[in-house]
């Protein structure tokens, strides 16, 4: 690369600066720019083909077969829609994992966003040390998805864990939360909500964009703090709320690590933490039913696509973009 640049000026200098040469040069330049574009793009293009596109087509095909990873690909048997049929009509664990995942997303995501927004509002003032607070609230978002933290978390909600120790201070006799089918998933929800730092920081960025004149105008009109929040902050923040909602919902649907750790990879107790992705992992990599797992993956992809599309169509009714040309 260094050579090219070193050469280029001298070549240029040796040519007369006449118009035809220049024109020819620029046309050649455009063509060479197109070539360079594809050279620079080539790793990404290769990745798109080899790591994304071909595998996806392959998995679409495999989802119509009974492929188990152990026998060669050439011996797979075409089973048509059997995998899909089994999923929807003949696999209680599948519907269990759908229910677990949807309830996880429906409860944990709104709560997480509410906490994130609440703390962001409290932090949206300038005082010494506010940066440190922001950073410390963000810390759980950095480590929250790790196995190590999930292990600690599960122990915290054990019979002898810190949470029951805390309840003991108030004379409440706790229970082994993580071993109780009706509480295990809630434990994971609390873990998810605990990581409210990432959406919080995005809310903070959004709050900074709200023009202070709007608040002044609102208070001149006699709006109280709650009214100001409802009529100024929320609408002005709606694009950021929307962004966080889409991102966190998609994240929520993909929760895997904590559920794996809590149940030692089984989705237990009694399938109460059988998240969709964990079920997919079990079907594919424990039971070696790659055909079925591929079908599950495609339904997952379609579901995420539909949910995103629903967000974007309904978003039009409540997301307000300021009409200024700043955006």
């Amino acid at each position, binding site marked *: 690369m260094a050579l090219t640049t070193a050469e280029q000026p001298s070549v240029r200098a040796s040519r007369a600066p006449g118009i035809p040469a220049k024109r020819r040069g620029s046309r050649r330049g455009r063509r060479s720019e197109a070539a360079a574009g594809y050279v620079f793009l080539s790793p990404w293009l290769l990745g798109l083909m080899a790591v994304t596109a071909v595998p996806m087509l392959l998995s679409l095909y495999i989802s119509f077969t009974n492929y188990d990873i152990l026998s060669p690909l050439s011996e797979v048997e075409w089973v048509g829609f059997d995998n899909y049929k089994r999923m929807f009509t003949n696999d209680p664990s599948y519907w269990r994992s759908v229910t677990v995942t949807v309830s996880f997303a429906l409860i944990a995501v709104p709560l997480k966003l509410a906490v994130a927004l609440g703390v962001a509002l409290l932090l949206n003032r300038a005082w010494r040390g506010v940066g440190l607070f922001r950073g410390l609230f963000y*810390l759980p978002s950095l480590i929250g998805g790790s196995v190590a933290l999930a292990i600690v978390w599960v122990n*915290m909600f054990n019979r002898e864990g810190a949470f029951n120790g805390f309840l003991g201070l108030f004379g409440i006799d706790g229970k082994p939360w993580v071993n109780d089918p009706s509480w295990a998933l809630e434990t994971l929800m609390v873990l998810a909500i605990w990581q409210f730092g990432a959406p919080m920081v995005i809310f903070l960025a959004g709050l900074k964009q709200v023009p202070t004149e709007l608040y002044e105008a609102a208070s001149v009109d006699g709006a109280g703090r709650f009214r100001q929040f409802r009529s100024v902050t929320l609408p002005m923040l709606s694009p950021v709320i929307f962004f966080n909602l889409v991102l966190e919902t998609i994240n929520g649907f993909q929760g895997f690590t904590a559920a794996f750790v809590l149940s030692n990879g089984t989705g237990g107790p009694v399938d109460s933490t059988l998240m969709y992705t964990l079920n997919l*992992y079990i079907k594919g990599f424990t039971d070696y039913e790659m055909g079925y797992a591929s079908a599950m993956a495609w339904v997952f992809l379609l579901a995420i696509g539909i949910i995103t599309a629903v967000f974007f169509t309904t978003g039009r009714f409540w997301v307000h973009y300021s009409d200024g040309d700043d955006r």
Partner: protein
Amino acid sequence: MLVLIAILGIVLYPLVWMVGTSLKSQPEIASNTGLLPEEFTPRNYTDGWNHFDVSFARFFLNSTMVALLTVVGNAFSCLVAAYAFARLRFPMRGFWFAIMIGTLLLPQHVLTVPQYILFKQFGWVGGDWPYVPLLVPQFLATEAFFVFLMVQFMRGIPRELDEAAKIDGASPFGIFRYVILPLSRPALVTTAIFSFIWTWNEFFRQLVYLSDLKDYTLPVAMTLFIDSSGQSSIGPMFAMSVLSLLPVFLFFVAFQRMLVEGINTSGLKG
């Protein structure tokens, strides 16, 4: 303000409890659920380090290697792709860019099953060097998030600089090398930091591809504790949890301002 301090207390409680418990003696772990040990002991750390047939030194080394190579691969391949998208004109650029944005939404769990099948066909799974399937995608700019981040960043670099270099006779390669590369340092650093932390914490793919104990990375090794979860190993388990979170924590301390600003401007997720 008081409310904030109360919330901060709740947020930090699990972390302090984790460190405190890792320093408690074995009998104390069961009897004392409080934050701090009555008697500090480093036993759990020495016990945990050699708890399995393979020492944690090996797991740390494996994780470090995977994370560093991922950083190099992501930084280089995403930068190159971003330069093409942000600065060069070529046929079908809009189309490819739309595809790139589309892949942002692709859940990795959907891709892992078919990738595993394909990589197995290539003979990469369980080969001499089991990290190949983990690393190849990172060298091919498949982390669309970082491509997007760098495109956004490069759009902020004044075009006049490219024009000036072009008039001086620089080729697209020259512009990349002498204009864009040096000026992209902040975006590269952000990518490197997040790449490292995410890979360090990443679990699903490492679980799928690593099957030999000596090849395990930290997250996979940590799951051995839950397999053999007798009450006796809680102390060592906590100690190793603390150690395995330490690099991320140090990154956090060193780059706290940048991490928070990074997600601020780009919507990066932790």
